[in-house]
Structures are given as C-alpha cells and as structure tokens.
C-alpha cells in the first residue's frame, strides 16, 4: 500500500513569507507526527495528533508554527513570517496508534532565503 507522502518535496521561500507543508499519512493511521531535521541532526519532535486533535504540541518552537488535521487524515504544517533559521527538512510520520511503529514520509526540504 501507499506510504506516507509529503508535498512539496522542496520549498524555497523568502524571509517573512508564509508556507504550508502537507502530509498524507498511511490510510487508517490515527496518530500523526511532525518532526524537523536539521543538517547532521536527528529528527526533532514538533507536534503529535491523535485523530483530529493536537495531543502534544510542546515541540513547536514558537507561535509562528501551527498545524492542523481537520478530518483526522491529511495534516498541514503552517509557518508564518518564515525566518532563515526555519530552513530544515520537515518530516511527517504516522502510526496505527500512539507509540506504535512510526512510518516516515520523505520529507519537505524548506529553504528560507
């Protein structure tokens, strides 16, 4: 079956702009996670959804970052007033239930100029 997909694969934007990153999880997976991976580092947790609700958003760095999952499937990570320090690969993962095996998508590489 299809794995986790993320779009776009690459996004280049200018400082101060707004961006949206999309994640399509594996069908039937109720848990969805967003991570951020900087060059040479491991993935860093941002937010976790169980169904439609954000069960844990403690990893979001500040209020410029926001994520939604309105129907319990597709999720969108939204970044306002982007800064150069936001440049990273944003990874999405889904699992059948909380703390079950997490399956990662290929990521979206965000570059803020």
């Amino acid at each position, binding site marked *: 079956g299809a794995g986790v997909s993320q779009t776009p694969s690459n996004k280049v934007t200018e400082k101060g702009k707004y961006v949206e990153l999309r994640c399509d999880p594996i069908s039937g997976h109720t*848990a969805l996670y967003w*991570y951020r991976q900087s060059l040479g*580092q*491991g*993935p860093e*947790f941002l937010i976790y959804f169980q169904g439609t609700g954000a069960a*844990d958003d403690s990893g979001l760095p500040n209020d410029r970052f926001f994520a939604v999952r309105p129907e319990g499937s597709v999720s969108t990570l939204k970044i306002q007033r982007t800064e150069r320090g936001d440049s990273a690969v944003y990874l999405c*993962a889904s699992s059948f239930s909380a703390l079950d095996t997490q399956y*990662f998508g290929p990521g979206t590489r965000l570059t803020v100029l």
Partner: protein
Amino acid sequence: QQQVKQSPQSLIVQKGGISIINCAYENTAFDYFPWYQQFPGKGPALLIAIRPDVSEKKEGRFTISFNKSAKQFSLHIMDSQPGDSATYFCAAGSKNTGNQFYFGTGTSLTVIP
C-alpha cells in the same frame, strides 16, 4: 538537553565486518527503543526495535543489545555490506513521555567494498 546520546558520529567498516553503534539514555520512563536507517533524500525507515523486557533482539544481520541497568543500547550490523551505507538513528519513547520519539544525533556508516 539531548535525551538520547549516540556514538560514534561516523563509522567506516570493511565489507564483511561488524558495525557497532551505541546509544545511551537518561529517562527511565522510556520503554520503546527503535533504530532507524536513513538514506540521503529519504525519510527514516524503521530497521529494528526493542522493549526493555528483553536484552537482545535479532533480525537477520541486525541485532539490538539492551542493557537496562546501564541505560544503554546498541546496534550491531553483522557482515556489513556496501548497501548498508547510510545514516543510522537510535530513538527512545514512552507513552509516559508524550508519545514522541527522542532521536540520537545519528551515525554515518560507510561500508568499504
């Protein structure tokens, strides 16, 4: 504060040799320890995982050794192959720590033919 410490940062092994990557953690609430393999431009893929009720788990050429008292776990890749060349991440998680995974900083493995 790095919840999971991983070493070495990079590793070069001859084909047929054993690759060993080590991780240590502090939070005794962790009860799930996966290892992920990541190729350039791809998302992390689950390789093997262990829970602390066993000291070792083997799947093919990959073995996890777990030492609960020392709060350490390691990945052993037997008969290493050039196709194993990738970045490896250890991780730890628990439902009691927010259902997220805490990742190590990664080990870049190169297997020389």
